[in-house]
């Protein structure tokens, strides 16, 4: 089977020759080309080269366009900081919606308007041209609370849930429209799967998650499906309290961070959800040895059961020893779901 056939078959519940392998790499991938991380974030050709080299060197089944959380916010006009060797980051004390009345006049940027979103879309087109026959191509967007936090300032948004609930609903509705437009262009450019990163969802409890976040995540997931895309959900951090809701979103892949027990995710999300993850990317993958990695991914697989995709709990850290990543990949290469 090609990588592409394998992942698509697994997503559709058909038999596969081995476990699919889809770890998140960003800074690690940039290192494979010797590029500055700043260039990886801002030049799609550098990103594509890094992803393809990494996927080929380690036998990944996919490539992705994720580099930092700030593409959409930057195009909306939010001040961001570019670092030489780290992801682009939002400058919170200059948050675009520090004055929330500005939301009413905020325009959704054109994803093809020559900004950072457009750069990500160009990466997808180049992926399609170079590896589209073999690999799964994954785009990336931010979820409602993650993007809401990028626009409003994360600390302020956390208090908005109590101070001004109607504003939060308006903000998240804006975000969903923005993200669905971005997703549509990504799918047109060649993405098979849209990754949705909604990191800040792990900061709120189940009450706020269900009242404010889940309904918009659901709209996003349903919207991507209506556009013909598959969805991979990734929420960084401790998601134990919201696992059940995450399972009910109907995502094609739930990519779990290492803090939430994957056995509990299986129990809460049912037998059909495809779980991905979730060994600790720092203490095991970066700081451990190959034997630690094999033991940890074996345990994850046993706890998750089938269907399952191999990956770490979050991004493979930049200075992960290659032999550790190889051990993770070897597990996928030699095991059935």
């Amino acid at each position, binding site marked *: 089977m090609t990588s592409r056939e394998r992942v698509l078959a697994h997503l559709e519940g058909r038999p596969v020759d081995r476990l699919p392998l889809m770890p998140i790499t960003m800074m690690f991938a940039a290192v494979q080309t010797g590029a500055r991380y700043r260039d990886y974030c801002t030049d799609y050709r550098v990103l594509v080269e890094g992803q393809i080299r990494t996927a080929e060197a380690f036998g990944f089944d996919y490539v992705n366009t994720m580099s930092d959380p700030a593409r959409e916010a930057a195009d909306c006009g939010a001040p961001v900081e570019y670092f030489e060797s780290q992801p682009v*980051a939002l400058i919170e004390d200059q948050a675009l919606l520090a004055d929330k009345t500005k939301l009413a006049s905020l325009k959704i940027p054109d994803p093809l308007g020559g900004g950072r979103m457009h750069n990500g879309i160009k990466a997808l087109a180049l992926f399609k041209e170079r590896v589209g026959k073999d690999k799964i191509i994954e785009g990336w967007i931010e979820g409602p609370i993650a993007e809401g936090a990028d626009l409003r300032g*994360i600390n302020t948004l956390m208090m908005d849930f*109590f101070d001004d609930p109607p504003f939060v609903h308006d903000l998240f509705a804006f975000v969903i429209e923005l993200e669905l437009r971005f997703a549509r262009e990504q799918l047109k450019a060649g993405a098979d799967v849209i990754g949705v990163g909604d990191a800040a969802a792990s*900061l*709120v*409890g189940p009450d706020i998650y269900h009242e404010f976040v889940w309904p918009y995540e659901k709209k996003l997931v349903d919207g991507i499906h209506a556009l013909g895309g598959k969805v991979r959900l990734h929420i960084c951090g401790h998601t134990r*309290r919201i696992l059940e809701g995450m399972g009910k979103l109907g995502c094609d892949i739930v990519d779990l961070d290492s803090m939430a027990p994957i056995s509990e995710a299986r129990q809460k999300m049912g037998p059909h959800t495809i779980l991905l993850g979730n060994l600790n990317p720092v203490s095991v993958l970066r700081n451990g040895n190959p034997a630690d990695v094999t033991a940890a991914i074996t345990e994850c697989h046993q706890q998750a059961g089938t269907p399952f995709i191999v990956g770490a709990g979050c991004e493979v*850290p930049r200075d992960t020893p290659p032999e550790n990543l190889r051990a993770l990949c070897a597990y996928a290469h030699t095991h059935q779901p």
Partner: protein
Amino acid sequence: MPDLKELYEAVVSGNAKATQAITQQALADGVDPLKLVNEYMVPAMDEVGRRFEANEYFVPELLISARAMKASLEIIRPILTARGDKPVGRVAIGTVKGDLHDIGKNLVASLLEGGGFEVIDLGVNVSPEKFIETVNSRQANIIAMSALLTTTMPSMKTTIDALKQAGVRDKVKVLIGGAPITQKYADEIGADGYSENAVGAVALAKKAVAAA
């Protein structure tokens, strides 16, 4: 005289207007400001920390409680300073150079303040020089550093080395935390303490000042 139990309740429920009003009324009625802090606010923030640890409270709840506490402390602190009352300790806190992720740092800062510490919040992307300057100019006796990224963690070691070079390492206890940090890393770089969560950080800071 207001019912001071309401001050406790207002902090726990995150009602800043109420904490401010009760504090003003209590002070006008001649209540000792230190009594408000020690008997109501500190126990209230202890309760908030307990609920956070027990997964009954999450980041939003903790932040609004912290805001309610600060609304009262803003009134009380100048009075305590004017009469020469000393805080439990003075903490200079910030995310390290290159790291803009501050939610964890803000939680720790709030709980430290709730624990009776004076907190000098240096914000995000704090250079070693800025930490050193704060030790010298504000007599901070604890430095608390946070990093979310594995790529910014090394700034913690850079800062500790800079403290040594500046000759102020012995004046402060250095505490560190953040998602990728471990006790092993804290030991390797010569930090005085590590906590994996915000509640633990307060206990650690109290231990650090007691040992000093």
